[in-house]
């Protein structure tokens, strides 16, 4: 009996001493915690708040009742979305646009970085590299505007050239078969320079003795690129590939919003542009949230999948 009491006392004592410890820790860090309060509020309101707000996808959102008091409807919006004709079209468009962006967009910065590295004239190299960042400083509106100007059927330089070599002018921006090409090509133009930064840094980290040894052995420059630069870049390339493949479905919808029109919806409309139209333009908040959740889940699965595959293949993982 006494033993048990003692035991109990010890537990409460250790329990309370744990709380005392935590309290002391808080008290010691109180200034740091005060500094941290704005950050906590920000993350709760604007990062975790929307996560909680996702429940409206399972409700019929009513503006007057708010997120909490709107009626539950279960999976109604998801069912409507899966049954609608839009679903497969959006699915296909999202996958194709993401896939083509990766397929065409991924190799360019690597090639650019390797070619730039081969330049012996440092000033030329620096100039080209500096200029290549320029598009990263331009907004998506400006880039889209350039695309529209260059492709204009009346005055655009590309159509003038097409007419000059004797072909029919192409109405690029209302031609569904051209949309993906335009999207991917303008993306390459806009991102190649700054995507190459990472590869250039990786090349700079290659041990120069490797090149010296190869030179002593009479190795040609082409062979050095092929057997030293490229293999040394492989880990970086692999990591970047995993990241890019994982983000394949997070498509830059801002540019699509600026470049598409009803005539190209059939190829240009992706999940996020659909969410924008249904949710913010047609104020169909609950339905659009359901689509948004579906998109997020797909994107997350994609990220996890590429990660698992790469871990199985080469033991590399971004987690």
């Amino acid at each position, binding site marked *: 009996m006494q033993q048990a009491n003692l035991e109990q006392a010890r537990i409460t004592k250790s329990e309370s001493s744990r709380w005392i410890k935590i309290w002391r820790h808080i008290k010691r860090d109180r200034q740091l915690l005060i*500094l941290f309060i704005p950050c906590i509020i920000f993350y709760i309101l604007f990062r975790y708040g929307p996560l909680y*707000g996702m429940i*409206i996808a399972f409700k019929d959102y009513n503006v007057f009742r708010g*997120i909490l008091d709107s009626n539950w409807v279960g999976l109604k919006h998801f069912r409507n979305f899966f049954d609608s004709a839009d679903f497969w079209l959006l699915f296909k468009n999202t996958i194709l646009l993401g896939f083509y962006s990766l397929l065409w967009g991924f190799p360019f910065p690597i090639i650019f970085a390797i070619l730039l590295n081969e330049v012996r004239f440092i000033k030329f190299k620096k100039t*080209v590299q500096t200029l290549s960042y320029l598009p990263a*400083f331009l907004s998506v509106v400006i880039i889209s505007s350039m695309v529209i*100007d260059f492709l204009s059927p009346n005055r655009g330089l590309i159509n003038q050239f097409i007419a000059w070599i004797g072909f029919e002018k192409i109405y690029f921006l209302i031609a569904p078969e051209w949309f993906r090409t335009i999207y991917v090509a303008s993306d390459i133009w806009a991102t190649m*320079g700054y995507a190459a*930064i990472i590869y250039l840094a990786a090349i700079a980290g290659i041990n120069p003795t490797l090149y010296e040894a190869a030179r002593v052995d009479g190795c040609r420059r082409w062979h050095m690129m092929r057997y030293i630069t490229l293999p040394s870049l492989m880990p970086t390339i692999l990591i970047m590939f995993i990241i890019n493949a994982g983000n394949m479905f997070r498509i830059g919808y801002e540019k699509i*919003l600026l470049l598409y029109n009803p005539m190209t919806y059939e190829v240009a409309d992706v999940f996020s542009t659909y969410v924008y139209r249904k949710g913010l333009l047609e104020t169909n908040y609950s339905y659009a949230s359901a689509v948004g959740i579906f998109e997020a889940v797909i994107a997350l699965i994609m990220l996890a999948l590429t990660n698992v595959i790469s871990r199985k293949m080469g033991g590399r993982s971004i987690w």
Partner: protein
Amino acid sequence: MVGEKRLSLFSIVNTILLTFIAIATVYPVLYIIAISFSDTASIVQGKVFLWPLGFNIDAYVQILSEDRVPRAYLNTILYTGLGTFINLAMTAIAAYPLSRVTFFGRKFFMIAIVLTMFFNGGMIPTYLIVQQLGMIDTIWAIVIPNAIWTIELLILKSFYENMSDSLRESAVIDGASEYRILFSIIIPLSKPALASIGLFYFMGHWNSFFIPMIYLNDVNKYPLQVVLRDMLIFATAEQTNSLVDRVTLAPEAMKNATIFITMIPVLMIYPFAQKYFAKGVMLGSEKG
């Protein structure tokens, strides 16, 4: 050397190729500037190629005499200035407790913050939160909901962590408070890192169009990028109709004049900024 002679062909091709890339990168910007200074006849006939034809500044006079663009310019300056300031202040302060190894709940906070990079509520729930906070159609909707970018917070946190601890320790011995340490020691010593992340915040605000477009309804509050978007849609509509326009001033000239004055601050900081920019990309990639 044996190799040298054989290299030359490759070097020539490579130089030509890279020169072409450099030209292709810069040319659209030069084209915009040329169009903005050209006269209507040359633009309509599609004669402008590299320099302005029939040089004039009518487009600039026109857009600057109307209310729309100057007002949008002031709005952009206001949103960018206040926005970047809030971003930097929030990030600089929030990164400090996180950089302290013994900070209460550090692990929990870190996990909670990093998780938001993978899970977010998405466009609509975020919009509804901003709406319920009564921020729609105010500057706060622009500057508050993205007050901290998680990636920049992590970059600054690791910068703080790599700083020498001895200064902080001597300040502690002198009895300085945490506030004092942060504002008088840590932040002044972090200027290069703050400049780097500040650049990203600045560019983010100056170039942002989607956020102001969805949160602002009042045309008078539009920043430049949203005004530009309206001009762009007008230009596209005009193209699809393919009508001969009878406006005395080509809409292209007005649009490209607006683009050019929008780009001026960016082009001015660009030579200095690109150094920080490359560094920032590298730091970000190490974290991501």
